[in-house]
């Protein structure tokens, strides 16, 4: 289940900045702001996906039961590397000008975490230096302090760094507070310290204990693990889906798509139909379906169905109504009762439904609905997008590759409304797109004041044709939804293709008259 709104503040605004260096075509530092609506655009292979892959590497490492010897689990549900050299930047730059692999994140209120790695042919990638700063406590300049923690740092150096950049020494009481050593933990580097005995947060007595100061303790792990990733390769035309467990903390491990039917099922059986309503409104807005329903077909399997008719044909049955139906006490004669009972028993047995009400609904939908595997790809490709947007809590990062995939142009344009709604709730969306219509839809939402311009940021990726190195141009749209000289080339393509077509038609028609 999702986090209760009263607890949203625990997670802060989420990840607000990502910097990547030395990763694939991002050979030089690419430092980008992440806002509630962040758009990554650019030509094919310009570095958009590469920018987000470090987060995916970290997510799959954190989700793994296996603790890899290297900092990252390189092959998993999100990335498929076998050797670090597959993602390390290879450029024609002289060796001394090449930047080592490094990642940096800003998150919540003034937290910064960074990691710098060294790469060797035999050992692969190893962590070299780390950084964790509570900027609200310490210096706001990350530059002066960058990469100070190394395994060679002395306890005195580490102690002075903690005093400068962390609130821990004060919280723990400086008397008896001892820094022990720098430590590595998966892809992080941090400080192991010993805190003196004292009172815990609830006044309870606590003995002397050893603790860590590292990004995971500042909350970065939670943001990375809670990230929802909707990949470009999606739209599995499954007829039946496994019932999956829905994490209370909003963790979705492995392909998000596999959670989608169970999430819809849980929304449809919840007291509050808000999320189910939002999903159906989204599908209707995109012109794909008037409603959607899930049907339990066995104890472990679900089907996802949409109505045959595009217009809503019957009143919506809410979660509480479903439960009420199962408690109905019909006044039936013995013969009728036996007929109904045997029909329901048969339906429950065959469908795996939990109760008679569900069995009745399952029978009904068989005549009015079809499995989403039997309709066009658009529904099954956009469903994970809509469900992710609706399910995500404020501050939760949702990374979607090509949300416009398989959608009709009108739906691509309308999809911007759904994105803006999620961003307005505080969800941190990073979308990677090639759709000029979706981009225009977003700018229209801004011009119509449906979303504030400062909640959106656009990053245009380009790759140098000679060096292969990516560069990024960022722009904040103005309140009228204009982006100035942001170098997107969608307009060039649109006007150029229109002009070429019209010229060709005219030439053909003129030639035909001669």
């Amino acid at each position: 289940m999702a986090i209760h709104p009263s607890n949203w503040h625990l997670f802060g605004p989420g990840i607000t900045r990502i910097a990547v260096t030395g990763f694939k075509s991002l050979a030089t530092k690419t430092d980008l702001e992440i806002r509630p609506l962040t758009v990554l655009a650019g030509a094919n292979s310009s570095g958009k996906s590469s920018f987000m892959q470090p987060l995916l590497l970290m997510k799959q490492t954190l989700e793994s039961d296996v603790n890899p010897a290297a900092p990252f689990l390189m092959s998993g549900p999100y990335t498929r590397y076998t050797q670090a050299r597959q993602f390390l930047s290879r450029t024609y730059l002289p060796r001394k000008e090449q930047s080592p692999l490094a990642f940096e994140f800003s998150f919540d209120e003034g937290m910064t975490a960074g990691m710098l790695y060294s790469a060797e042919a035999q050992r692969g990638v190893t962590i070299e230096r780390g950084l964790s700063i509570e900027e609200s406590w310490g210096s706001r300049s990350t530059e002066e302090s960058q990469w100070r923690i190394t395994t060679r740092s002395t306890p005195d150096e580490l102690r002075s760094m903690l005093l400068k950049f962390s609130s821990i020494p004060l919280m723990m009481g400086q008397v008896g507070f001892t820094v022990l050593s720098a430590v590595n933990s998966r892809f992080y580097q941090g400080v192991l310290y010993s805190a003196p005995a004292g009172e815990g947060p609830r006044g309870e007595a606590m003995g002397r204990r050893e603790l860590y100061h590292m990004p995971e303790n500042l909350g970065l792990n939670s943001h990375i693990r809670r990230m929802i990733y909707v990949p470009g390769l999606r739209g599995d035309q499954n007829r039946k889906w496994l019932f999956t467990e829905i994490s209370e903390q909003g963790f979705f491990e492995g392909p998000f798509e596999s959670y989608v039917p169970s999430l819809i099922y849980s929304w449809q059986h919840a007291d509050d139909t808000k999320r189910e309503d939002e999903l159906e409104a989204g599908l209707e807005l995109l012109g794909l379906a008037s409603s959607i329903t899930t049907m339990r077909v066995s104890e472990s399997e679900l089907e996802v169905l949409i109505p045959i008719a595009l217009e809503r044909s019957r009143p919506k049955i809410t979660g509480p109504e479903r439960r009420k139906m199962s408690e109905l006490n019909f006044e039936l004669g013995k013969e009728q009762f036996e007929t109904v009972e045997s029909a329901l028993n048969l339906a429950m047995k065959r469908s795996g439904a939990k109760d008679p009400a569900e069995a009745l609904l399952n029978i009904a939908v068989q005549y009015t609905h079809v499995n989403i595997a039997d309709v066009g790809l658009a529904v099954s490709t956009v469903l994970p997008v809509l469900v992710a947007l609706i399910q995500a809590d404020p501050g939760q990062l949702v990374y979607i590759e090509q949300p416009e995939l398989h959608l009709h142009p009108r739906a691509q344009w309308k999809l911007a409304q759904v994105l803006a709604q999620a961003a307005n709730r505080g969800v941190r969306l990073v979308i990677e797109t090639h759709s000029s219509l979706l981009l225009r839809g977003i700018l229209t939402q801004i011009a119509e004041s449906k979303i504030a311009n400062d909640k959106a940021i656009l990053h245009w990726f380009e790759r140098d044709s000679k060096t292969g190195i990516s560069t990024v141009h960022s722009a904040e749209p103005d309140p009228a939804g204009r982006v100035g000289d942001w170098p997107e080339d969608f307009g060039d393509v649109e006007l150029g293709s229109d002009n070429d077509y019209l010229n060709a038609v005219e030439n053909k028609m003129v030639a035909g008259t001669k």
Partner: protein
Amino acid sequence: MSWKNSKQLVVDANVGQGSSNDKMFNPVLEDSGSQSRQCLQAIWEERHVAVFSGNLRDEWGRHASSYAKRWLRNMEQKCRIIEEDGERFAELAIPACACLSTAGEKAALAKDLHLIQSALATGQLILSNEVRFPRFVALACGAVQELVSLYYANPTVEGDRCRLWIKAGAEKDADRRIDVWVENHLKSD
């Protein structure tokens, strides 16, 4: 605009109207559509700025072809449209119209005076398919000195030369001064 060679041009609604290939089914007619479209495309490619007044925007809204609407939308997105009514030049209407002899001519000039106002307040460049309007302006140039600072280009009359001028930077060439342009292009009419 940061683009060093960009100029500010008032683009009349008839250029937007003529930018489709509506006439392709009767290509025997002189086709201004293609020429107008090539000029709009050149403005886009050279990153020039289009100047609009409220009146002009209304006319564009009513008459623009689908290509021109897309052009306008892209120009807006790139902040290459500026709004300028040139209200401070409105007082030129009376002396300018006084130079014309008939009520019809005066009304025709008054109708398009917003183009002059916007141009005078910005880059002094007008792109239009009109032939009557520049003639009236040229007639008024003797009495209203400000009008001599206007420069004119006409896709239909000039053909590809107009597009090439825009591509070359839309400079204020002497032969484009509105009275000279009329003399050169409309003298025999």
